[in-house]
């Protein structure tokens, strides 16, 4: 963070047209040069005798951290957020999803093994439990099968201090006290026992605002929420954990390990933490499903990851093989790509030629997305050796459609 050179320059003599314009007292030739150096933090703000208080306060504020991050694994940290909403700027660190384990449980090692073995890929992202949480540090450090993928979070440890409270106010008071006592790395834990979703969201939003907008020091640390032990209904756990992913927990500690629950939370987390400016893409090319033969049907779509994934999901589930041609369309969905000229007859023809589709199959039929039915003739003209067939608008209709062609 910090101020930009232009934000600084606005307050300097050269911009406010006061007599000290470019006075060189700071050692720089111009006020602009000073502004650039200050923005890059290469000069002390006090070397300029004309800096107004306003700028001094602004600089002080801008240099404050919005939210500190706590690093758990080389590639996994909690916190470090800079905005309130995902449409302003991509969120930084996806919510850490942890499972609480108790080393005293008779099936502890089984559970630990199960949590760690749980991994799968979706839309190119690996999904798994990020961390195990221990209320009492185990006497013997648990053997993690892969400590680069699963972090250990414990209540008492040297790396960070967990500050717990019932309300944002209580947490902030305790956090301030810890900071006064020289603690550096804090995790703020909000107790949600007995609270409704609107209540907890309100409190977590308050904490996040005090951090991101106000940069109020005791609030500027990652927030952890533990699901209550007595919450036995997995569907309620799902609702609460989902709300916590959206608004605004950095670490969620679950008491339950349930694959169906986790699969939905991972999907939601991926949605909330994707870059809103840049769609997820897959590589353009030809994808085969279920060992396609020379008579396998051929479908075509763009390289927007969600479109690809929806279609691929259907093709994978078919009892026969198939091909999917994916066009290089800058990760745009079908209609967007078409209106932005990223899905043209010429591009499709070129892709089909480059990928040498004709060497792979004996069929000469290509099924295009139903949303592009209006391009059928145009594509037919561009690909005279192929028959262009309009397919379904929705991917879930593909299986029945393929039965009919």
């Amino acid at each position, binding site marked *: 963070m910090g101020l930009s050179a232009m934000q600084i320059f606005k307050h300097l003599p050269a911009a406010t047209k006061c007599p000290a314009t470019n006075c060189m007292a700071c050692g720089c030739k111009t006020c602009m040069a000073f502004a650039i150096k200050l923005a890059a933090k290469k000069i002390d703000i006090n070397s300029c005798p004309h800096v107004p208080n306003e700028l001094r306060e602004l600089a002080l504020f801008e240099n404050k951290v919005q939210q500190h991050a706590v690093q758990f694994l080389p590639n996994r940290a909690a916190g470090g957020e800079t905005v*309130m*909403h*995902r*449409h302003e700027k991509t969120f930084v660190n996806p919510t850490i999803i942890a499972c609480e384990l108790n080393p005293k449980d008779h099936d502890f090692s089984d559970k630990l093994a199960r949590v760690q073995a*749980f*991994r*799968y890929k*979706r*839309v190119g992202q690996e999904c798994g439990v990020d961390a195990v949480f221990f209320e009492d540090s185990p006497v013997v450090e648990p053997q993690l099968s892969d400590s680069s993928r699963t972090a250990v979070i414990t209540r008492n440890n040297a790396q960070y201090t967990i500050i717990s409270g019932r309300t944002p106010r209580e947490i902030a008071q305790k956090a301030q006290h810890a900071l006064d006592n020289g603690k550096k790395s804090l995790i703020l834990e909000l107790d949600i026992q007995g609270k*409704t*979703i*609107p209540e907890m*969201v*309100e409190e977590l*939003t*308050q904490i996040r*605002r005090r951090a991101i907008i106000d940069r109020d020091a005791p609030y500027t640390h990652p927030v952890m929420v533990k699901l209550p032990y007595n919450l036995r*209904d*997995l*569907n*309620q756990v*799902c*609702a*609460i954990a*989902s*709300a916590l*992913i*959206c*608004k605004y927990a950095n670490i969620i500690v679950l008491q339950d390990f*349930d*694959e*169906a*629950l*986790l*699969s*939905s*939370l991972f*999907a*939601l987390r*991926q*949605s*909330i933490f*994707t870059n*809103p400016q840049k769609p997820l893409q897959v590589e353009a090319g030809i994808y085969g499903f279920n060992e396609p033969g020379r008579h396998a049907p051929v479908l075509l779509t763009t390289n927007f990851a*969600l479109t690809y*994934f*929806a279609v691929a*999901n*259907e093709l994978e*589930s078919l009892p026969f093989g198939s091909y999917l041609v994916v066009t290089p369309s800058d990760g745009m969905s079908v209609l967007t790509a078409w209106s932005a000229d990223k899905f043209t007859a010429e591009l499709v023809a070129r892709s089909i030629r480059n990928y040498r589709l004709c060497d792979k199959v004996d069929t000469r039929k290509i099924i295009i997305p139903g949303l592009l039915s209006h391009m059928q003739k145009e594509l037919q003209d561009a690909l005279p050796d192929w028959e262009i067939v309009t397919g379904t608008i*929705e*991917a*879930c*209709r593909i299986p029945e459609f393929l039965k009919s062609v």
Partner: protein
Amino acid sequence: MNIDLFSVINTKIAVELPLYFDRTYPDVLKQAWGADSCEKALEKAFKSNADYVCVKFNVNAGMEETMAKQAKSPDKADSDLQIIPFSAELEKTAAFIEKHLKNAPKPLILRGANDMAADAMLVPFLAKHAPNECIIAFADEFTYERIVPECVKRGHRLVLRSPIDINIAKELNILAMSKGIDEDKILIDPDTGGLGYGLEYGYSIIEKIKQVAKDEEMLDKPVIAFIGEEIYKAKEAKSDMFNHEWGDCTRRAQSWEIAGATAMLCAGADTVVVWNPETVSALKGVL
């Protein structure tokens, strides 16, 4: 007031049933309802703690059925007695409303088939035949002119759908009001993708609408999200063909909708329309 908060009082859960439990309607949901038809499930929906019951008149499914029957008996198909599928569906729709919805014990949402061709006729028809003061869904920039007058006559509230675009949402509200609908009878449906399939676009549009609504009266309307329909387009929410890492299918059919619906509420949606009765119970327990 804090703009990031959603109001407990306004948050409503609607549960949706299709008129036809056709083959596209997931088996896990038939099991969840413990019913194989809309009529039977409807009784349970009325007894649930949902705030609204929504019926989706998926007349396409009925038309397909009729056409399949006609194709099987070719002699009848040639005769003058051949049924014209769409008008037959309108008759069935009117009869269904009369029999099952006229004295409904809960507020109703009546919605079209979400099919452009069918809805152009079907949605105005629903607005005309629905009991007074329902919510009718949906009108868009192509259909609002025909739908608004019917809604005004019967005191319905109207859902206006815009394609994930805040400017079109605003414009559509202005256009609908110019046709006579009261501003407090409008609900905004910004459209959304399902969980794992573009939910984030709907999420961000709802957040933006709620941010802007403070200063922009034309967007200061309740937001409704038909999230159930989107959730169950995804295989993840209904197929038992996934590896064991994905967990039990019945459980997934619950968790995926609960996660998606909760996200919509967190973004600021005032009403979520869900398909699984378990979602209603779960959300009612924590809101």
